């Protein structure tokens, strides 16, 4: 999550709302905001905690601490970030920056109703704020109303044409509305911005993959990885781009980078799907290299994570048939048929 672009606004907000009991606290708050602006998150955290030790009711200090936790970008810090932002708002409900990032965290956690509540409160406090409008649009899309997202994000762009998250959210809404060309146009606007995020690259790469434009998908995935070389979803897209061009060795290399030894993922449905996807791509790469036992092993591993995927059974049936194991092939065909016929 990007913090720096809001840092100037944060600093201004802090200085406007800060009323610490002493000048030194004011200076420390200012220093914390400065650290945050420069991405020196640990120093920002230290300063904020220092201020809170002296003045536990400093709303700006709670807000800055929350933003510093957000800036760490770790799922492990989400609870702390939310706690600090909520406490800031409890002490000073006018801190819009805290409200916005609290809403963002709710969105990240899939708690869209809670995000909506915060965003609507913010817009009541300060109508027309483009970042609130835009995120509210995305929340409405997540809640099943992409047309509302289109309307709100257009409003946001009318107020601030440089707000590329609005382009991104608009693109997602167009995708929901099956308007792929419009979506592509918005994604491409978004990724041309200096404030592009990895999610934007990933979304565009997925579109290129869907259109079988593997070279463009590779290019965009590499740009995503330049932003954050630890992201497995970007490596997955890269591997798909390689597999699409039968560059299976390069695909396997990308997949190894996605899940280096010792790396573990949270036990969530999202990561369950991601691990199934990674194994599926490994299976495809091995199959392409005619290494059928390895391919079978990988598809079987993918099934462990995603037992409901009929397509995996189909591939396994095909591979078993090619390796002469008719019984296993029949079994997987039956399982695929069952899954395809069962209601979702």
């Amino acid at each position, binding site marked *: 999550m990007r913090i720096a672009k809001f840092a100037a606004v944060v600093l201004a907000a802090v200085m406007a709302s800060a009323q610490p009991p002493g000048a030194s606290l004011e200076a420390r708050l200012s220093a914390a905001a400065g650290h945050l602006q420069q991405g020196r998150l640990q120093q920002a*955290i230290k300063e904020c905690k220092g201020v809170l030790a002296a003045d*536990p009711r400093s709303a700006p200090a709670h807000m800055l601490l929350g933003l510093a936790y957000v800036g760490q970008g770790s799922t492990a810090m989400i609870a702390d970030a*939310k706690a600090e932002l909520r*406490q800031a708002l409890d002490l000073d409900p006018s801190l819009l920056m805290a409200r916005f990032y609290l809403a963002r965290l709710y969105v990240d*956690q899939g708690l869209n109703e809670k995000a909506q509540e915060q965003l609507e409160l913010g817009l009541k406090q300060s109508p027309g704020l483009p970042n609130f409008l835009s995120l509210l649009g995305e929340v409405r899309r997540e809640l099943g109303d992409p047309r509302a997202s289109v309307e709100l994000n257009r409003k946001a762009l009318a107020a601030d044409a440089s707000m590329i998250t609005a382009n991104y959210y608009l693109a997602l809404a167009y995708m929901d509305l099956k308007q792929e060309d419009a979506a592509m146009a918005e994604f491409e606007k978004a990724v041309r911005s200096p404030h592009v995020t990895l999610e934007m690259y990933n979304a565009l790469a997925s579109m290129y993959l869907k259109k079988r434009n593997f070279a463009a998908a590779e290019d965009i995935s590499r740009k995503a990885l330049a932003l954050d070389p630890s992201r497995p979803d970007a490596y997955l897209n890269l591997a798909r781009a390689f597999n699409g061009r039968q560059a299976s060795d390069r695909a396997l290399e990308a997949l190894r980078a996605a899940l280096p030894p010792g790396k573990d993922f949270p*036990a969530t449905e999202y990561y369950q799907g991601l691990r199934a996807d990674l194994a599926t791509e490994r299976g495809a790469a091995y199959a392409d290299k005619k290494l059928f036992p390895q391919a079978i092993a990988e598809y079987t591993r993918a099934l462990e994570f995603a037992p409901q995927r009929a397509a995996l059974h189909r591939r396994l049936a095909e591979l078993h048939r090619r390796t002469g194991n008719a019984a296993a092939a029949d079994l997987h065909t039956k399982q695929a048929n069952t899954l395809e016929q069962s209601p979702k």
Partner: protein
Amino acid sequence: MSRPCSAVFLLLASPLVSQQTPVASRVRFTDVAAESGISFRHESGASADKQMFETFGSGVGVIDFDNDGKPDLFFANGANLSQGKRSPGNVLYRNLGNGKFEDVTAKARLAGGGMFATGVIVGDYDNDGFLDIYLTGFGANRLYRNNGDGTFADATAKAGVGAGGWSASAAWLDYDRDGDIDLFVGRYLDYDIRKPPFCGFNKPGYRMYCEPQLFDGMPALLYRNNRDGTFTDVSRDAGVANPVGKSLGVAIGDIDLDGWPDIFVANDGVRNFLYRNKGDGTFDDITYGAGVGYDVNGKALAGMGAEIADLDGDGLPDIFFTAFSDQYNPIFRNLGKRLFEDATVKTGLPPSVRTLGFGAKVFDFDNDGHPDIYVTNGHVIDNVALYDQRLSYRQPDLLYRNLGAGRFRDVSAESGPAFRIRHVGRGLAVADFDNDGDIDVVVSDSGGNPLLLRNDGGNRNHWIALRAHGRESNRFGIGAKVRVTAGGRTQSREVNPYGSYLSTSDTRLHFGLGSAVAARVEIEWPTGKKQIIDNVPAGKVLELDEADANR
């Protein structure tokens, strides 16, 4: 008062010290619940919906409800809410004094009316000399007034302490020192039973209980006792209504020795709270300054049960709490001046534990004069082994022996068969149930039968126990400070049966004396009155009456 060792509280000299050295005792704990007649079984409500409260367990309360000197037992019970079922009910056991307990729930009218009960908080809120019970729960809380005749009456509506939401540990404390006990209630998550989110892998058997970070916290409640059977919610004005709290453990103690009880709240996955009582009806959140909010790496732990106790004998109350598997159970040593240091490793406790701790109690199991730590364990995720084979749902408990000066050693393996039991420990309380001079342990089990762990051998060393009878102070002397000097050492404790997790221990204070055969006892009542009794012989329960105290 600034320090406990003022001129009034000088150490006594040799007459109280025997020539023997304390017995380096081999104490064994054995589960005698079944043979004692305790057949309670907890209903966790575990279901395929994986509702968060199903992991919570319920607490246990030690309550001498009939004042016969034999500690009785009360178990709170959950309910299968996913199937819309009411709780099978709480159970009150009367201690018959012969190693047996009798179920007297029906007569006492304490079954609970089907509520999903969690915490058991025992205290005499109306100062009538009989201990009452406050039950926290999921959905609502209840206050049961002890009628003094073996029955209880639901006083929730009149008292106005029904709360709501999801309450966890709580404690009675006389925060305004006006002579009656007030009520602090920790609350956990803002949770909607109608919308249990899906967590874990989406394949058969893999759905798991969610992490608390997916939910918002809830503000704690502070109810001021109006002395007329009613209470006023003063949480917000008092400064303890932080909306981000995910309270599991609540411990009370005067951490800065200014005479006013302070509150420590162990939160699950967000920073802890240390509320300093300013003495004017309000509290300051001094967590950041005190350094007790986070672990050594600046990360919030998943705090569970909590204790405030002087672990190193320096007269300053320290903080201990339990935490999640692959975290650690930290000791925050009180350095004075409202500063603490994470002294976990220094004290010999491990920097990481696989077990997931819930209830914890600081008490002197071997009567050697040094308070020890008991931790009950049990994971929250019943299918955790599917995700991490190193971990298990059922876990053994831990016993850390205090070797002196706050150094600890894990003596679980050598402390009897109790520590070979793998269970899902939650609530934990202590009392000398058989009145044989050593402290026994009771542990509640989520979805199972409780353990009643008889202490065999702790009484090889000498001991004294104290029962406080407040007059101007609250009737059971909650918050009174007691210092016992024997064998050249002084131990400082407060009359405070709370802490741990969802549970209440005996209101009597128990001190191990090692080889000393007598002790000097000093008590400072919540009113500020003080009392000193010399040459109290070991092996007795001393009745301390505030009427005998002087200003």
